């Protein structure tokens, strides 16, 4: 069950709503309010007069929008994109069986499952390691480009896209954990051994960078431009 909170039971909010040219709910920014990003408390906005204001309830620094949101998001996204190349090219795992060893990359792992008929598991790894990171690159790129232009195109959908990026992002750590568990188990010296390789470091860093990139993006910026 769901229902929207009554938007006009409060005097000043209702007042602002009537005066607004469009039927959009009043922004906290226009009402002279700011909400704490850590605890959600709605406070009077005095950031103009006093530079740094802590939240009276939890003590976190108040700000209207995440600081340098677009620049930080771009920087982290580009860093992640660059590292995504070695993450895919370099081996993530080394398997030795009875003296003969071989390196495997993320994609060769997917192919190996697929060719032995384990389609389900191949798909799970493909989604977590290829589809999710690539989808994140594209989504964040799209959000950044459209937000920079102040576009009013598909705002609601773009908000939903951002929330999806936030929710699915960390599942990409799957490959790192598979390498960890497998390497911890298979250590029969000489008979069979599995060791992590440097590719998994790059891959893990890519996942962390994309998570930080998504966290730096402020979804309120989507709604800050003018209506067209």
């Amino acid at each position, binding site marked *: 069950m769901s229902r929207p909170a009554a938007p006009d039971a409060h005097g000043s909010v209702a007042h602002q709503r009537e005066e607004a040219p469009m039927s*959009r709910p009043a922004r906290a920014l226009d009402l002279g309010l700011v909400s704490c990003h850590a605890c959600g408390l*709605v406070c009077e906005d005095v950031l103009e007069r006093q530079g740094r204001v802590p939240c009276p*309830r939890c003590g976190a620094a108040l700000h209207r929008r995440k600081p340098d949101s677009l620049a930080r998001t771009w920087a982290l996204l580009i860093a992640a994109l660059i590292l995504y190349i070695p993450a895919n090219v370099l081996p993530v795992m080394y398997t030795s069986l009875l003296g003969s060893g071989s390196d495997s990359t993320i994609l060769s792992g997917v192919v190996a499952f697929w060719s032995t008929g384990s389609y389900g598991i191949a798909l799970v*790894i493909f989604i977590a390691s290829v589809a999710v990171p690539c989808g994140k690159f594209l989504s964040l790129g799209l959000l950044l480009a459209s937000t920079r232009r102040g576009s009013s195109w598909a705002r609601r959908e773009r908000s939903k896209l951002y929330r999806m990026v936030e929710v699915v992002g960390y599942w990409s750590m799957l490959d*790192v*954990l598979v*390498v*960890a568990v497998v390497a911890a188990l298979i250590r029969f010296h000489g008979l069979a051994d599995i060791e992590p390789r*440097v590719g998994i470091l790059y891959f893990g860093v890519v996942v962390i960078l994309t998570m930080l990139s998504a966290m730096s993006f402020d979804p*309120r910026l989507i709604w800050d431009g003018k209506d067209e």
Partner: protein
Amino acid sequence: MLKSFTNLVVCEHCDATYTRVALAPGEVARCGQCDAVLYRASLLDVDRWLALTVAAAVAFVIANVSPVVKISLQGLHSQATLWQSAAALAHGPAAPIAVPTALAIIVVPFMQVSLLLWVLGHARRGGRRAPGFRLAMRMLAGLRPWSMVEVALLGILVSVIKLSSMVEVAPGAGIWATAALMILITIVASRDIHWLWEFTDRGRPRGEGRS
């Protein structure tokens, strides 16, 4: 003192401002503009919440002391716990990734459960705020995206399937405990810890912390 308005809520995804309304159990208040969840009615009172957190603590201990997977190959046996898995990454050229892995699957869940035990243990005694309540609440909000118990569980399952063609694989007690921990931590450490602020406000002298 900075003025604050506990009767208002601002959508953190689009900055739309609304007046809070009381919700029936299970109801969700959504933003009319961007459809994000504004707040939920909590299904748990503090006692139940604390009970589930204690259960999560027990699951955490079992998940971390007992092996998650056991294997055998030609009479040789091997097993791994969550900690050993993270530590296995620490050998070789990929060593630095062992740190965020250990944080995500062990340290962060541990801190979430400990902080909640601390905060809830005090809150149930008449809505009291624990020493360090503000810091604990901020940490709980900041830690949430880095807690990856569910990813660890999927990783264990994928590893089991991966290895089953090569060796004999048996699940350890740790895998069930990890599954239980995943469910419990999703319930107790979810986004909706905000209402603890309002709940503990009742246990404080009138007017303090408000305008």
